[in-house]
């Protein structure tokens, strides 16, 4: 398992996320779901921007800012360490 996540999560195809530890639920958009899945699969934070740019039509500088912002949101929500 990865070291990022606070607890066990179930992420559905539709972007519905259930936190088994807290009982909270979330919705992720398509890009968010992609990144979250990569985190669950154990991808390293440093590789995520590259994974995003190779999967989606987006420039690297924008992806970098957005992934950064996304991580901040996950941290603020206490989903990742």
């Amino acid at each position: 398992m990865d070291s990022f996540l606070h607890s066990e999560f179930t992420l559905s195809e539709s972007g519905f996320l259930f936190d088994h530890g807290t009982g909270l639920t979330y919705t992720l958009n398509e890009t968010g779901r992609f990144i979250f899945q990569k985190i669950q699969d154990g991808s390293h934070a440093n590789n995520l921007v590259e994974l995003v740019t190779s999967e989606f039509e987006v420039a690297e500088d924008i992806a970098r800012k957005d992934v950064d912002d996304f991580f901040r949101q996950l941290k603020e929500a206490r989903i990742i360490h």
Partner: protein
Amino acid sequence: MGINVGITGLHATDNPAPGIGVIRSLKHPEGWDGEIIGLAYDVMDTGVYDENLLDHAYMIPYPNSGTQQILARLLYIHSKTRLDVIIPTLDSELALFQHLEPELRKHGISLFLPDSIATKRISKPNIADFCKELEIDTPKTYAVKDSGELDKAIKEIGYPLMVKGAFYEAHKCRDDKDTINYFNEMRQKWGYPVILQQMIDADEYDVCCVGDGKGGMLGALPIRKTRITDKGKAWAAITLKNDQLFDLSKKIIRDLKWAGPCEIEILQEKNTAKMHLLEINPRFPAWIFLGTGANQNLPKMVVDLALGKDVQPLPNAKSGVTFVRHATDLICPIEWLEKLTTGGELHY
């Protein structure tokens, strides 16, 4: 082919919305062959998880979102699960459905609603003027639209008084501190005006009526609440036979040419036995299922009226029928929550 009915107001908490009572009335007695489509504003609207009551549940936009967006959503639902009739059950959505009615009717969705002028006349800020016109007594009422008027209103009414939100909620206040607190709370929650109303020592009665839109009253269910919650909601009640209540209701319905359901709240002053009109809610009350036990299945009547059927007035309600509400828990798999959250619909 059965009639499909869409119903709003499914959140049945300790301050229950009327939707569940309306659905149970429609499905009573056996023989209902249509489908019930629950129209929910929040995925936690409790009623959507009752698979025994609903056939389908759909999320719809709040009445204060854009009208076109709501219309589009209703027409989408109609295209997937035919909607023959919609019964809105919340005060705050009436203006919306009045506005949408012609368009919905064009698509074959029927409603039976009062007109907007009648609704305006009985709105909380205008009810005092309405009573004056009809020469009906009413507790002293002040619609406050500016915090600067609060002092004046308190002075005119005196304590104890009720502070009411423009759409919902009422709080008993015994001093300035209470009044100011609840005034601010109601203003933030429901906007202006905030209603201040005199409290009188009285017995409280409710009458649920259905008007035919031409001045006639087709059904009436007078009750006395025998157990209320701390929010003043009926937890038990008994049906009555009371000519005074019946006649007053009839007079109101006639003057308004009221179409569809309403709940008339009446106070009878203890000292003088004088009847006061407290307020009129332009919808079914949450306890409407009680009517099925008293020969007044009013939701069924409203479906018939919406469909343009010839509806005859019902004989008087049977008195002495009681209901007691009791809370129950539903078990639901998380997939239901997921489906409603991400897909906006759930089919049982």
